[in-house]
């Protein structure tokens, strides 16, 4: 067995027993990177020298691959955008400081959809990432590079970020565990903002135990991010050790099982997952989330609105691309942004500016925030009856490159992950099987209430056990 195949737990055990060092791990990953990255393209950059230096300085640490929107001092942070090509981070994000304080080192920058806007990583301006299970298909997105790195054993584990499904959907497409923590559970200081009322950083791993270990390291109050509450972080790994399906109350939101256009194999795998949970002693409860049908519309108002404000900082003044063609300050803004941003980012900035503009704010953004309250209430009511919910994660397995051409069709790929993001609760994708003909991985989604990560991870671990 090669060291790059290890997950976090196995790597930590081996390090503790002195079987190998961080340098051995990093050397193995470098070999794997050289062998595979040309084909998979999981990484935009992997600074071998820096990774080896970090490993030498931290001989008991586990390397973690980082989505290219999280700042690590001295490393690039491009957000897969031309506007940030050449940018070098002057500081560490809080999640990186937390990793370093807990025996991890950041190694490698994973590809993504530009500024995390997309569901296939095809919106990266800087590289193509292929699905490790079929190079003709996308890895999902926006954390597609992180998911492909985990799925292709090109890392021990990775960090992704999720605004409307960007950890969970690629995790489903690439056969990994992906956890979107509750809103505010993990600090966003130093993480390039997309939609600030939704963004969360989370683990993408080879097992549920690994996700628990990594989340424990990431989570907690940060005085640099005012949205992180002072809620104690449980010791997730030990809290989930005795996870059991028996007696777990699993809600099946009926709206998620009545969707038209769901792939037949995804439906089969999800139905089978439900049956296996029941056979293992879970209690199935049908629940209803009646405002599910509005979630996509709410999201595609709120997320672009917040993005348009957040991305105003890219103006060619203090960092990032500055157009050589600009003559005055207005044309400097207009041209630097025109040259620097890709089409999907431009569309969302325009959409967001429109819904926030004078005369339209109440009808769009204001109204969307009220409908969001209704969606949140749906979840509160459902979680009064059940411990977790089980749903499909994405309506299809990994699709082919250029298969979804129309932006709106691409957006609909996130219909199962967006409502829980709007509600601010936690959710995860766990591998549930493979399609029969195409042999593509499919994950199912577990959802738990806000700050109920222990309950969520317990359900995921119990599920992982019965699927083993």
């Amino acid at each position, binding site marked *: 067995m090669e060291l790059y195949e290890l997950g976090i737990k196995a790597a930590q055990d081996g390090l503790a027993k002195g079987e190998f060092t961080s340098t051995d791990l990093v050397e193995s990953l470098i070999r794997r990177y050289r062998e595979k990255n040309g084909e998979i393209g999981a990484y935009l950059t992997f600074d071998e020298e820096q990774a080896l230096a970090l490993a030498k300085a931290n001989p008991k640490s586990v390397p973690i691959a980082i989505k290219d929107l999280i700042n690590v001092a001295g490393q690039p942070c491009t957000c897969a955008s031309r506007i940030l090509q050449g*940018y070098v981070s*002057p*500081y560490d994000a809080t999640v990186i400081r937390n990793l370093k304080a807990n025996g991890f080192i950041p190694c490698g920058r994973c590809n993504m959809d530009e500024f995390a806007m997309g569901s296939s990583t095809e919106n990266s301006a800087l590289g193509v990432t292929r699905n490790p299970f079929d190079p003709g298909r996308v890895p999902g997105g926006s954390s597609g590079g992180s998911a492909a790195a985990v799925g292709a054993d090109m890392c021990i584990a990775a960090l992704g970020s999720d605004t409307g499904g960007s950890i969970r959907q690629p995790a489903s497409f690439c056969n990994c565990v992906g956890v979107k923590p*509750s*809103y*505010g559970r993990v600090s966003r200081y130093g993480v390039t903002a997309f939609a600030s*009322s939704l963004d969360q950083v989370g683990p993408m791993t080879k097992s549920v135990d690994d996700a628990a270990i990594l989340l424990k390291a990431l989570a907690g109050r940060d005085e640099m991010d005012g*949205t992180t*509450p002072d809620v104690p972080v449980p010791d997730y790994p030990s809290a989930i050790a005795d996870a059991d399906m028996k007696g777990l109350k699993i809600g099946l939101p009926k709206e998620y099982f009545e969707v038209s256009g769901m792939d037949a194999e995804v439906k089969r795998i999800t139905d089978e997952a439900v049956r296996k949970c029941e056979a293992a002693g879970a209690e199935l409860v049908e629940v209803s989330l009646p405002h599910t*049908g*509005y979630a*996509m*519309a*709410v999201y*595609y*108002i709120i997320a672009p609105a917040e993005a348009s404000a957040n991305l*105003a900082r890219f*103006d*060619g*003044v*203090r*960092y*990032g691309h*500055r157009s050589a063609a*600009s*003559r*005055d*300050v*207005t044309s*400097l*803004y*207009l041209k630097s*942004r*025109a040259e620097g*941003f890709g089409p999907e980012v*431009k*569309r969302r*900035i*325009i*959409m967001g*500016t*429109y819904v926030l*503009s004078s005369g*339209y704010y109440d*009808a*769009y953004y204001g*109204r*969307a*925030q009220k*409908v*969001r*309250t*209704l969606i*949140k209430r749906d979840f509160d009511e459902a979680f009064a009856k059940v411990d977790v919910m089980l749903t499909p994660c994405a309506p299809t397995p990994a699709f082919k490159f250029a298969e979804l051409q129309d*932006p709106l069709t691409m*957006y609909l790929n996130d219909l199962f992950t967006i409502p829980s*993001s*709007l509600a*601010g609760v936690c959710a995860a994708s766990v591998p549930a099987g493979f399609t029969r003909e195409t042999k593509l991985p499919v994950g199912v989604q577990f959802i738990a209430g*806000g700050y109920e990560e222990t309950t969520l991870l317990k359900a995921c671990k119990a599920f992982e056990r019965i699927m083993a």
Partner: protein
Amino acid sequence: MAGNKIDVAYVANLARLELTPEEQTLFQGQLEDIVKYVEKISEADIAGVAPMMHGRPLVNAFREDVVRPSMDREAALGNAPARVGDEFLLPKIVEGAES
């Protein structure tokens, strides 16, 4: 809100994005579809419903008002597209002023 028509050229200028004529035509059609799609929210009954501003109810988060080290000046200027000394260099902003 039904029937509102997005004027992509106008909004792009508000967002300080210069579009090519091709982009303008493409985005106009695509964004009309997206705007039409999101207008679905007008069907929801929101009478008496409070807006949800964030992923979690927020209270003011204060920290001690004490001076502490901030980012080193060179580090902050390290990614500047253009600089003079310790400042970011920009085209002239105030009309009539010397550049």
